[in-house]
């Protein structure tokens, strides 16, 4: 890592410098009315090499998949194949415009169509929309669809969404944006949905359930078919949060166990890069019940001609134009390279790797629900007084590993959520396991090493409380 402080661009600026040469004006000039003219524009002024070094040096202050292992639960930080990038950077995509007639965008629409078909097959869905730009955006689309469905059937009173207590925060937040109220369903002793509490909530106000399967505990919900039936019997619908689809590709089609609508995160399961926060794609797939409600337009094919069409009962547009297209190109590239056989191997190796790490760590790092896990598992970091999960996470950085997801799910105290993914070798998993075991020893023999960690990073632990109390959000001279 680059440990040297890097000045802000504004601190590197010198008046009169510019980093890009532009053509001169080859047409007669037209004066801008002075009443409209901007007087001040305080942007940095840098030459090109300074810009290049600045961002190269900044990049060296990051951990990334290309440089480090991320055993990061729930976020499926797998390798992003370079072919994805090559495919997405083709000039024919970069220069394509969504408002050119469909007849002159056949390549783009055909790619969307093929990806829709592949994802329909993987999920068992009747319809897929690639419009949503992120997982939470897909959830929003899904709950809008459920709401629109109940309104279409004359049931405006169905406003209650059931959400297990292990769910991602985006689930309840999406419901609020769709005007739904949420009821939290507790987990049972085995980490599954508490069936009695669920039954008690399945009344005539229920809109549906939002269920993550495998759950954020990394456990497959064994009652999934019973849960779906119970909710369906109460005239509710089942939303599947597909954040954990990496455990299931080619092994289970979610629609086969009663899911009505679901999002997949293409930036998790389908290997498109996380980009330091995005862009993603939160594809939504729907079973027959909700097939016509998906956000549009979606790609359609007729006699070899492709077009973008709005489904008949669509909730409408949730984004301008046609989704995060360049991300779709990456996901399509990946699915073509893997194919049906590769998708099975993906899930199998993701689950194998997780169980392997769990088997080697669980004696030292207790697992609250000690069942066989799927693609991830949740351990606990409070096995000794005075040491917290945060300390373990930060100490892992010293060993060159990105910390796991910590303090989530909320129902596991001091949670350490570990997801290896299928793209890591046994040697990498072993190195991570050794580091975890060593840290557990250090926790007893030299706890200060953990409390003071990380050591070899550009900055140490930052005072986040002070930062939030007096926020400095922009450079101020």
């Amino acid at each position, binding site marked *: *890592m680059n440990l040297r402080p890097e000045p802000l661009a504004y601190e590197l600026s010198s008046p009169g410098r510019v*980093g*890009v040469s*532009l053509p001169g*004006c080859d*047409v007669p000039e037209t004066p801008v009315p002075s009443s409209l003219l*901007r007087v001040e*524009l305080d*942007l*940095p002024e840098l030459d090109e090499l300074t*810009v290049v070094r600045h*961002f190269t040096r900044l*990049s060296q*202050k*990051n*951990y990334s998949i290309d*440089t480090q292992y991320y055993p990061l639960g729930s976020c499926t*930080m797998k390798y992003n194949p370079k072919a994805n990038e090559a495919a997405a950077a083709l000039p*024919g995509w970069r*220069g*394509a415009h969504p*408002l050119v007639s469909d007849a002159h*965008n056949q390549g783009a629409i*055909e*790619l969307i169509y093929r990806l829709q078909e592949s994802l329909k097959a993987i999920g068992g869905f009747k319809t897929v929309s690639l419009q949503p*730009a*992120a*997982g939470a955006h897909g959830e*929003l689309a899904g709950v*809008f669809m459920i*709401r629109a469905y109940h309104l279409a059937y004359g049931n405006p009173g169905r406003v209650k969404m059931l959400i297990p207590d292990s769910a991602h925060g985006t689930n309840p937040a999406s419901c609020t*944006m769709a005007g739904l109220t949420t009821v939290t369903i507790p987990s049972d002793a085995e980490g599954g949905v508490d069936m009695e509490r669920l039954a008690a909530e399945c009344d005539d106000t229920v809109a549906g359930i939002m269920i993550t399967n495998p759950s954020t505990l990394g*456990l497959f919900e064994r009652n*999934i078919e019973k849960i779906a039936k119970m909710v369906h019997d109460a005239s509710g619908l089942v939303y599947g949060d597909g954040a954990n689809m990496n455990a299931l590709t080619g092994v289970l089609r979610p629609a086969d166990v009663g899911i009505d609508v679901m999002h997949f*995160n293409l930036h998790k399961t389908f290997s498109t*890069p*996380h*980009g330091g926060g995005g862009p993603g794609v939160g594809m939504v797939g729907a079973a027959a019940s909700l097939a016509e409600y998906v956000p549009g337009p979606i790609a359609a094919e007729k006699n070899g001609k492709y077009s973008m069409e709005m489904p008949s009962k669509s909730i409408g*547009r*949730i984004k*301008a*134009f046609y989704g*995060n297209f360049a991300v779709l*190109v990456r996901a399509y*590239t990946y699915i073509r*390279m893997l*194919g*049906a056989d*590769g*998708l099975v*191997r993906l899930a199998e*190796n993701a689950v194998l790797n997780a169980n392997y790490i769990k088997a080697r760590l669980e004696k030292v790092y207790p697992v609250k629900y000690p069942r066989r896990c*799927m693609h991830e598992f949740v351990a606990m970091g409070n096995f000794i007084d005075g040491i917290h999960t945060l300390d373990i996470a930060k100490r892992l950085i010293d060993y060159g590993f990105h910390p796991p997801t910590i303090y989530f799910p909320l129902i596991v105290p001091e949670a350490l959520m570990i997801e290896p993914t299928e793209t890591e*070798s*046994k040697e990498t998993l072993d190195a991570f396991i050794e580091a975890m075991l060593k840290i557990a020893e250090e926790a007893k023999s030299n706890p200060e090493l953990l409390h003071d960690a990380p050591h070899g990073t550009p*900055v140490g632990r930052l*005072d986040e409380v002070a930062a939030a109390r007096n*926020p400095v*959000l*922009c450079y101020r001279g």
Partner: protein
Amino acid sequence: MPFIPNTDKDRTAMLGTIGAGSVQELFSDIPSDKRYPKLGIPNGISELEVLREIESLASRNLCASSSAWFLGAGVYNHFVPAAVPALATRGEFLSAYTPYQPEVSQGTLQAIFEYQSMASELLGVDTVNASHYDGATALAEAVIMALNHGGTTRNRVLVPAALHPEYRQVLATYLAAFSVRVEAYSEAPAIAVATVDAETSCFIVAYPDFEGRVHDLAGVADTVHAAGALFIVSADPIMLGLLKSPGSYGADIVTAEGQSLGNAMNYGGPFLGMMGVTQKFVRKIPGRIVGQAFDHEGRRGFVLTLTAREQHIRREKAVSNICSNQGLVMLMTTIYLEALGKSGLQAVASLCWNKAHHAAKLIAGIPGFAVADGTFFKEFVVKTPVPAAAIVEKLEPRGVVPGLALSRYWPERTHELLVCVTEMNTAAQIDTLVQSLKEAAE
């Protein structure tokens, strides 16, 4: 398989450690009759074969780099300096996670802080967040913010009739669950603002509007604020290199589509939703925000901050559900703004202004054609003597993309063409456009 390194030997050893007889056994919690379905998609093919297939698809689109391109309408053909993709696609940025662990994410975090610094200057606001999905969703979330701020008595939203039609549709989708009246105004903002009343939550201005018109917004904010409503502006950020910022006109919330700042058109995405607010709304804005912080040795660093607004902390009480955003697109914009800097952005904006006005003058001189009245920046409406859609259809196969026929969104507006001219268009291309329009109308 290149992305799955486990060998049979590895698998056997790992299964031994786990105490399982086979990998399939690990899936025993899944209903057995549903396990291992036949997907009906082909088996995997090589990288070489996939890239050939995708190259063939990519070649079947009309492409700006091989055409005389005058189509904008919310997606713009601007120059992207080589340094922008070269730096942004470095694996350390591209394959990095959301910067929740600040000690190993200072590169991403500092870049976001620099984005926030430059974007807030450009928009003329105190703070911007670190991105929405696009300009349309940024505007929709701004309206939700205004509705939450105004309380239950203010449920009227005033939008310009000349708002991008897809933005209007996205807004309708986002507001489906709320009891809200969205009303469109057709007059200039300075006149329409008089209708803001005690039930109005927000008054939205498009700057410029969908038809390219740049309205003088002097005095608008005072009227909006006197009625207790919020003033929201949806802006073109390239234009702000030359013309006054929305913030300088007193906007409370400014949104923008940031695609034009260093990002390719990419068939409409991924784009960059920009949103900025005045100080008063800093703790109400959705999305991620980065702030400056110090470690125990006094070293400066950057962290995600004000997280008490967000879904992972507040769940159903969060100000928005947004989580993943457009991080890498935002990084492209950050690099773009630093590479161009003050004089570069001013130069791009001036080129757009001068070339668009030159083109408008020439088009207005073609018999039968006229250019709509009003101040414009880089886009303007042309009244055509024959249906505009017919002109587009005739010219597209010839590699001349003359603009957007407004009938695409308003079927009754048959004889209007929205033309966009940027720094990418040479004088020779403008001459080609003029000649082509002339021929297409014959």
